[in-house]
């Protein structure tokens, strides 16, 4: 499908002509080519075309939004009327607004078409690599795709931004089997604008599949203790998600964010710097345009432990009177620490090397608990047996202040660059 600029222009004009004070339109067209491996066998090639038109109208500070994917003339005309109808019945809110822009810009990244023969070659080589080097591994599912997408943002306050992007993505879920015994499944992913690397060398795939074979036999921890948890880069994304979830529109508008009065304050260990950098050369997935239609910029969320920004959209910003985030708050990069991974391990008397965290969302106070999956006991500075039925509990706010060290080594996932982080004082409990 092609990006139809005329369609978007005409929608914007029609919304204004029919009574909107402010109008915004976003058209996204996308084509995906996807190979799927199930139970170790490549068994599906899938191609999908999608187009999606989102319309927003604001009239007398009342807002309506509607999304369709039928782009026929009659469907679009109906959608325009329905969007205005939604705005009419909504309630006035001064915070309802659209982004402001100046000159038109187009951003391009990644290839325009997939290199299908090379995709197949990379995938075949990877399946062979797994057979040869990880004989106990079972690839429950692997999805390897290329997505070409084009997005056009137009609105009545001068926004005219287009982004054309091509991206390869790999995600895989796997476990290991020996006789009748199975390891807990694990999963990981990687994204890139090219196919330069063999898949086994991408992100943490090789390491995690290797570790998984050692997780077939597990031990149940006896009792409960306060210890250090060495969080792996894959698992770190879960905890960063819990933290950044407290900085968004809903918790700040409702006043339930524990950080609502903490902007500019030291809320984490000074050794932690967390950035959101969609435009960083190390990031393949970054968007040049925010969800509201602003040009995205790189920003720091935590600078040496100090809270630098909330992650508010335009509505949240207007509602709270706080500054809007300069990007979507994703594409995390954590600065490397000053210790080798092995040295971090040497500093831990008793704890857990946490491979995956299966836990509930933290409550509004930041308390969390969950199961340590794909994890190993650490005793006297050495990695011990794999664990089962072991729970970790703590509080996100306390965790950020209890960092004992950050590794020099980091994993490049394409959408994030993350190290290992050692955190002290967490409750680790077995049976």
């Amino acid at each position, binding site marked *: 499908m092609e990006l139809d600029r005329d369609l978007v222009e005409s929608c914007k004009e029609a919304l204004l002509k029919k009574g909107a004070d402010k109008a915004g339109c976003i058209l996204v067209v996308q084509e995906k080519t996807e190979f799927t491996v*199930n*139970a170790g*066998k490549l*068994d*599906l*090639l*899938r*191609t*999908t*075309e*999608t187009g*999606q038109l989102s319309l927003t109208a604001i009239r007398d500070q009342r*807002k309506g*939004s*509607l*999304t*369709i*994917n*039928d782009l026929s003339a009659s469907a679009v005309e109906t959608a325009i009327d*329905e969007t205005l*109808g*939604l705005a009419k*019945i*909504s*309630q006035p*809110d001064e915070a309802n607004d659209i982004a402001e822009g100046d000159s038109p810009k187009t951003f391009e990244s990644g290839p325009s078409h997939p290199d299908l023969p090379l995709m197949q070659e990379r995938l075949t080589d990877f399946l062979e690599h797994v057979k040869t080097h990880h004989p106990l591994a*079972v690839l*429950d*599912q692997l999805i390897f795709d290329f997505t070409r997408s084009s997005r056009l943002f137009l609105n009545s306050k001068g926004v005219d931004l287009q982004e054309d992007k091509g991206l390869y993505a790999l995600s895989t879920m796997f*476990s*290991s*089997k020996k006789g*009748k015994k*199975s*390891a*807990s*499944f694990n999963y990981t992913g990687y994204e890139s604008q090219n196919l330069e690397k063999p898949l086994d060398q991408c992100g943490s795939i090789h390491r995690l599949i290797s570790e998984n074979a050692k997780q077939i036999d597990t031990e149940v921890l006896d009792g*409960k203790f306060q210890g250090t948890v060495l969080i792996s880069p894959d698992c770190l994304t879960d905890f960063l998600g819990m933290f950044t979830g407290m900085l968004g529109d*809903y918790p700040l*508008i*409702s006043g*339930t964010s*524990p950080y609502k009065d903490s902007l500019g304050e030291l809320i984490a260990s000074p050794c932690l710097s967390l950035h959101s950098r969609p435009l960083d050369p190390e990031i393949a997935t970054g968007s040049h345009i925010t969800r509201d239609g602003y040009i995205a910029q790189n920003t720091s969320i935590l600078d040496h432990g100090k809270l630098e920004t909330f992650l508010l959209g335009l509505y949240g910003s207007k509602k709270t009177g706080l500054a809007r985030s300069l990007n979507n708050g994703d594409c995390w990069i954590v600065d490397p620490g000053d210790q080798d991974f092995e040295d971090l391990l040497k500093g831990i008397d008793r704890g857990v090397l946490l491979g995956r965290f*299966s*836990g*509930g*969302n933290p*409550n*509004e*106070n930041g308390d969390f*608990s*969950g*199961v340590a*999956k794909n994890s190993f006991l650490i005793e006297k500075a050495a990695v011990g047996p794999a664990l089962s*039925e072991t*729970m970790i*509990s703590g509080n996100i706010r306390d965790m950020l202040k209890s960092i004992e060290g950050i590794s020099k080594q980091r994993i490049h996932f394409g959408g994030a660059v993350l190290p290992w982080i050692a955190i002290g004082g967490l*409750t680790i*409990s077995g*049976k």
Partner: protein
Amino acid sequence: MIQASELRKSASFFHDYTELRVQQNKSVEIALVNGDVMRNAVNTTGGSSARVGGCGAWGFASAPEVGTKTFERIVERASRNAKVLAKGRKEGSLPETRTEGCFDYATEKERMGQKELLDFARGIDAYILKNFPNLQSRVVVLRNLDMEKSLLTSQGTEAYSLTPRSLIYVDMSLMSEGQPVNLFEGFGGLGQFEDQFTTPESLFEKLQIQYEHLVKKAEGVHATAGPKECILDADLAGILAHEAIGHTTEADFVLGGSVAAHYMDKEVASPMVSLVDFAHHAFGETCPIPVHVDDEGTPAEDTTIIENGILKSYMHNKESAAQFETAPTGNARAFLFSDEPLIRMRNTAILPGTSKLEDMIASIDDGYYLMRPGNGQADTTSEFMFAVVQGYEIKNGKLGKAIKDTTISGVAFDLLKTVTALSDEMKWVATGMCGKKQPIPVGMGGPAIKCTVNMGGR
């Protein structure tokens, strides 16, 4: 939308095993945060897809359009995709299934407009504001999803379905000792809004109960970590049935390393426990997510997974049924028009027993009554974790203080062996959404069960 019979003329494009599906998902979402309309949106996603091939070499293609030319194009593209993978392979054939039917759960009442829906949400919000003024925040979300599908297969199935679901979520939060404490509740289930909800007033009593639980939770205590004798109320029994047992017995997970691969016809639970994935009706009523024909064209039938403690069956699509040399069970479901069917649960439930809940509580000296789950996850080993957002201590056979948010965990096949009582009340949870490459609405249910659980906490 196009009816299945209207697809019939496109059968001439089929040369191999083929499924042609036309689908539209229409969703409405209204969200009020402290009375402000944060979301007032409608989303319609529709189009057509074709899947061609089978047994290890599938091709799939979709387009956001509907019509004979589109059908011809996507069938041809799906065929090409299948051929890319089929080179040099010979992996057997798929079982034959064929059925016809129209399964329409649309309301016969006059439809409400978006303004009336918004007013409904406002009515709930106004009641909360007036009656519970000490809340720190309140969220009211109204969410409807209509999934409408027409399917034609080369084996001769022609089926149309409209499966709507209408839900209202309410989240209340108050401050306790300077910290926020919240409790959410979901209402609704199968049917369009008019069939699920009459007036905001019909929910007021439930909101009052939710608020009272919240106040007790704010004054509550932390659970003590470690194994405890517990009563899992129906909501938690349902998520246990779905997450911890159900997923391990989906045939694709069995092939992918699930521990259940070695348990067929073996004792995996107390003989009191039977677990069924219901297709469309159970206990004389329609299930929360009725599936009459799956997205491969197989008539959907109940799957008895555990019968009196013995593992009896896995859930199958056509391909896994061929591999296991059994019949497909009608569990192949797709979420969007552009999604391929995957093996998914439908309405998974532990069957009720004969005990009374109050007797079960009275039989515990030191334990917990766990009422409502948050999110949950489970493993191919059946090790699970569920957040618990509402529960009470049990001391000397009586309910005690409320507990704050906690987590429970364990190995489900081990837990089911500790079951010593099942209540005689069956309750469905109709708000479930399962994630497995694609999201999909599911039903979960069960009675209250008495068992030993590993509590998180402090």
